[in-house]
């Protein structure tokens, strides 16, 4: 393929990344951020899958079989633990404004400069080879694609991969060092990385599908042909000798790498915007790993089958197969996929390393030397950005040189694993640091230094031998002929592959020294303070400023000018405002700064120049006093107690508020009930007064007029009897209703035939019906199932409904229909009249007690005003329902339904 075309496409792709990042930052500036989204977060974590995965997995699978899977199994196993480990790290970093793994370790162990710089150096040493293999992958794929062999071979300035490295450096500088505060998120960069993750996954799967279904006839076909390969058996089985230990260490290594590789720390911790995003990433990320591995074996076997021993580098199979098949467009895309996998890693790793170098190596040097510090006092921001930008270029240059000098001779995976092993050395100090308060600076230092030394000796030294920088004799006979110091058989340990061997010794010594020295050494008060805050971060995160114990004298103007020096006027102003919002207490009149302000300022500075440099800077403008560990612990305990007292108080006052609320509503209810009762009473007495008035008047007249005519006398006496009956009825009803309402009314339950109830009720009213000449029709289904009920009470309901119907039906041509039938498990009874009907707006209210009395407009002759209310109570106590359907002028239809109980015999 045309060399310039490929180069053009490569740079075009880089330009695309620039555009994407630019667009994302503009969106974010407009408040429509892209990164506040768990999918982008999970995708950006897939920066784990580099050229190593894209090209190296296939190479590894083709040469050593299933072993390539181990480094994906580790992260998959780790993912569920993220909620415990990673969330804690994220919270600590947010609260303390930690931006790199070096700063994390240094901060935990008392903001120690030495520790921070050692971690930084190990990171740089460990990661530069890793970056270099990305450059190597780009160069080799370029070679393969253009059919030229000299891309990587020509001198530096004629070498394409050099310019690609330069382009990447530019991107990283533009989108990675825009703000001086490293805690500021790089939204453009993250978006670009997420895009690259998607891109490489899609292309790799497309290539896999092409190989599996385009070149071969599916998985089965490839496997069948592969079985004829001479070393198929070996590839598909685990090595019985050291296979187990190799798998074990690979899994452990990758479990640690997913947490502690500087680029993973960058995307997972520093760029995290919301802890909740972890929830999605915990299953999306393993899914991604699974997806990108599906086609590794088919491509590897496909390459073995197609190329045999043709001398094609197995790492490049994924590119070589489309080329062999003449699919140049696909090959170009595959190249771009690999390019994206490589560039993603390079960009993120370089940013992370450059921040580390500037904050943990350059800054302590600058602020630690008074002469320099004073001279550049006002240009520190610029200096910082400059050092980061320079750092990026230097790191890339070193990586390029390493690639030219060493990486060329090793496979992608071999070099990558060396990097993994380097960052694994941080694991004891970090994991121990967030769960074990007793871990000390000396312990961490001893563990890391010795672990890293073993790493260097067992993994880096042999690689230097390999490229001829050191004599081979070291490997074969040990240095100076001391055989128990042979790098691959340290202390005589044999029978392990070199990675397991290196991991075994480095981790054994690292963990042992970390714990041992920690137990033997003492923490300073500052260390102790940080240890408390780290381990119990979820307790302290909201009161961080008051949980750092600080004693001394500081003046507000000094603190302010310190912030201005590193943040600039505007941001310093904003930071001070944010502080005032959080702690609105008035300033001390003498201008003395509150300890909380000192801690706050130090925290803000940490985000810019790292915690140890921030410590030095703050210490240089204030007068500090020594504090003993006991004092620290006491104050911390107090502040914790304060939190728990506060929580307790808050809970108590919540409970109190709830109780008050309940009391008030209960009171409200009682008052309402009381009012109802009052109203009921006054209505009842009112209803009693009317017949009494009549009875008294009639009696007095009878008494005063003995000479009255007989006819009048009889009429009077008859009325007195009637009115007395009315009084009796009213009293009975009131008592009935009261019993139902208080729940004291007992139903006399038994099997009841509705037909019988209807018949008897109608019979009782027969005389009235005849008097008013009403046409009454009874239509009840025969043999209805019996219901379990109180017959007398149900009769009361029917008598009430029918007598209402008699009262209200048409005065001349009255017509009433009583029907009963079975429907849907219920027995339904209707009483229909042809009277003047009831306006729908009263349909609910007529079942209220004394509804007529209270609404004089529809007052009806006779009746206590309680009949329907009692009927409703009776039906409801039978688990039934009663209602009316009516329109003014069209008669009414009162209905009730009663559930049939199956356990009652149908015919008794």
């Amino acid at each position, binding site marked *: 393929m045309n060399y310039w075309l490929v180069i053009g496409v490569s740079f075009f792709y880089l330009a695309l990344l620039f555009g994407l990042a630019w667009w994302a930052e503009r969106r974010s500036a407009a408040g429509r951020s892209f990164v506040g989204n768990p999918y982008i977060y999970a995708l950006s974590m897939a920066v784990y899958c580099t050229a190593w995965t894209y090209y190296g997995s296939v190479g590894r699978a083709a040469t050593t079989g299933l072993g390539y899977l181990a480094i994906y199994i580790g992260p998959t196993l780790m993912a569920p633990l993220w909620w415990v480990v990673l969330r804690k790290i994220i919270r600590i970093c947010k609260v303390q404004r930690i931006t790199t793994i070096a700063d994390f370790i240094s901060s935990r162990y008392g903001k120690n400069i030495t520790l921070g710089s050692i971690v930084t150096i190990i990171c740089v040493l460990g990661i530069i080879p890793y970056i270099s293999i990305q450059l190597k992958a780009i160069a080799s794929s370029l070679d393969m694609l253009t059919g030229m062999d000299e891309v990587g071979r020509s001198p530096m300035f004629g070498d394409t991969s050099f310019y690609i490295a330069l382009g990447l450096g530019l991107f990283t500088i533009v989108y990675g060092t825009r703000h001086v505060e490293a805690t500021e998120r790089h939204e453009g960069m993250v978006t670009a990385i997420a895009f690259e993750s998607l891109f490489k996954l899609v292309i790799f799967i497309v290539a896999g599908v092409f190989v599996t279904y385009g070149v071969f006839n599916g998985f089965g076909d490839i496997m069948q042909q592969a079985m004829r390969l001479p070393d198929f058996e070996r590839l598909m089985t685990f090595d019985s000798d050291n296979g187990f230990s190799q798998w074990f260490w690979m899994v452990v290594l990758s479990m640690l790498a997913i947490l502690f590789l500087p680029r993973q720390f960058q995307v997972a911790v520093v760029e995290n915007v919301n802890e909740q995003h972890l929830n999605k990433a915990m299953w999306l990320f393993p899914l991604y790993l699974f997806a990108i591995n599906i086609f590794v074996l088919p491509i590897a076997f496909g390459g073995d089958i197609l190329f045999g021993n043709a001398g094609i580098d197995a790492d490049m199979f994924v590119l070589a197969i489309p080329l062999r098949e003449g699919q140049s467009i696909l090959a170009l895309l595959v190249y771009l996929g690999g390019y994206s996998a490589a560039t993603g890693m390079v960009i993120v790793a370089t940013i992370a390393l450059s921040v580390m170098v500037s904050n943990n190596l350059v800054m302590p040097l600058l602020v630690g030397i008074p002469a320099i510090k004073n001279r550049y006092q006002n240009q520190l921001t610029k200096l910082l950005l400059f050092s980061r930008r320079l750092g990026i270029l230097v790191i890339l240059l070193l990586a390029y040189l390493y690639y030219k000098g060493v990486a060329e001779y090793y496979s992608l995976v071999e070099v990558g694993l060396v990097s993994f092993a380097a960052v694994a050395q941080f694991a004891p100090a970090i994991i121990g640091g967030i769960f074990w308060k007793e871990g000390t600076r000396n312990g961490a230092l001893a563990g890391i230094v010795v672990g890293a030394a073993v790493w260097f000796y067992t993994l880096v030294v042999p690689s230097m031998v390999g490229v001829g920088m050191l004599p081979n004799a070291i490997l074969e006979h040990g240095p100076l002929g001391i055989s128990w110091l042979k790098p691959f058989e340290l202390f005589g340990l044999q029978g392990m592959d070199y990675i397991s061997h290196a991991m075994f010794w480095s981790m054994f010594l690292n963990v042992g020294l970390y714990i041992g020295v920690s137990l033997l050494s003492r923490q300073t008060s500052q260390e102790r303070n940080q240890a408390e805050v780290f381990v119990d971060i979820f307790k302290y995160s909201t009161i961080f400023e008051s949980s750092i114990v600080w004693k001394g004298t500081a003046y507000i103007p000094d603190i302010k000018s310190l912030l201005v020096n590193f943040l600039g006027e505007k941001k310093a102003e904003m930071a001070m405002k944010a502080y005032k919002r959080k702690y609105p207490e008035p300033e001390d009149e003498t201008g003395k700064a509150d300890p909380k302000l000192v801690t706050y300022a130090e925290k803000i500075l940490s985000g810019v120049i790292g915690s140890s440099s921030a410590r030095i800077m703050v210490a240089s403008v204030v007068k500090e006093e020594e504090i003993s560990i006991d004092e620290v612990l006491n104050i911390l305990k107090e502040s914790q107690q304060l939190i728990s007292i506060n929580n307790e108080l808050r809970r108590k006052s919540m409970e109190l508020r709830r109780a008050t609320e309940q009391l008030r509503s209960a009171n409200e209810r009682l008052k309402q009930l009381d009012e109802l009762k009052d109203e009921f009473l006054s209505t009842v007495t*009112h209803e009693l*007064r009317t017949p009494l008035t009549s009875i008294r*008047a*009639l009696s*007095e007249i009878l008494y005063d007029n003995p000479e009255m005519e007989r006819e009048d006398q009889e*009429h009077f006496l008859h009325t007195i009897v009637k009115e007395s009956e009315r009084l009796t009825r009213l009293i009975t009803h009131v008592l009935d209703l009261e019993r139902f309402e208080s729940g004291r009314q007992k139903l006399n339950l038994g099997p009841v035939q509705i037909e019988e109830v209807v018949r008897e009720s109608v019979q009782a009213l027969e005389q009235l019906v005849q008097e008013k000449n009403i046409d009454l029709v009874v239509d009840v289904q025969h043999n209805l199932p019996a219901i379990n009920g109180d017959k007398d009470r149900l009769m009361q309901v029917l008598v009430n409904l029918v007598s209402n119907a008699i009262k209200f039906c048409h005065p001349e041509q009255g017509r009433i229909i009583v029907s009963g039938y079975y429907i849907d498990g219920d027995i339904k009874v209707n009483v229909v009249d042809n009277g003047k009907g009831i306006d729908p707006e009263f349909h609910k209210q007529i079942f209220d007690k004394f509804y007529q009395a209270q609404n*004089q407009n529809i007052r009806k002759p006779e009746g206590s005003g309680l009949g329907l209310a009692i009927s409703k109570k009776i039906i409801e106590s039978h688990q039934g329902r009663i209602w009316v359907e009516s329109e003014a002028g069209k008669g009414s239809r009162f209905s009730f339904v009663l559930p049939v109980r199956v356990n009652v015999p149908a015919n008794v």
Partner: protein
Amino acid sequence: MSAKEKLKVLVVDDEPSILMPLEFLMRKNGYQVYIARNGTEAMESVDKERPDVVLLDIMMPDVDGYEVCRHIRGQEIMNGAKVIFMSAKTKDADIKKGYDVGADLYIPKPFSTRFLMEKIKELTQR
């Protein structure tokens, strides 16, 4: 008013069992009796018959007694008429309202017919 001329009494109540004895009582005492079973009938009767005494129930289906009383007091020609409320409403507020709309007397139910007659006579002798 001439002594020969019978005093006109309008009895208003929606309860026939109350209307009936009162009607008898008034006639027995030599008055000209008119009856009304609701507020509307009562106002019609007031306009038509111009009674000297109105015995007025308060709670009635259409127009209540207070309204009827206001109707009476709204006409100059009815100035001399005596209005007596007879009501089952016995709360102070109800009684006060009765006097406010212009009643001469408010008798709570149940009442003695003898007391009622005494009062009617007292009111009409002046």
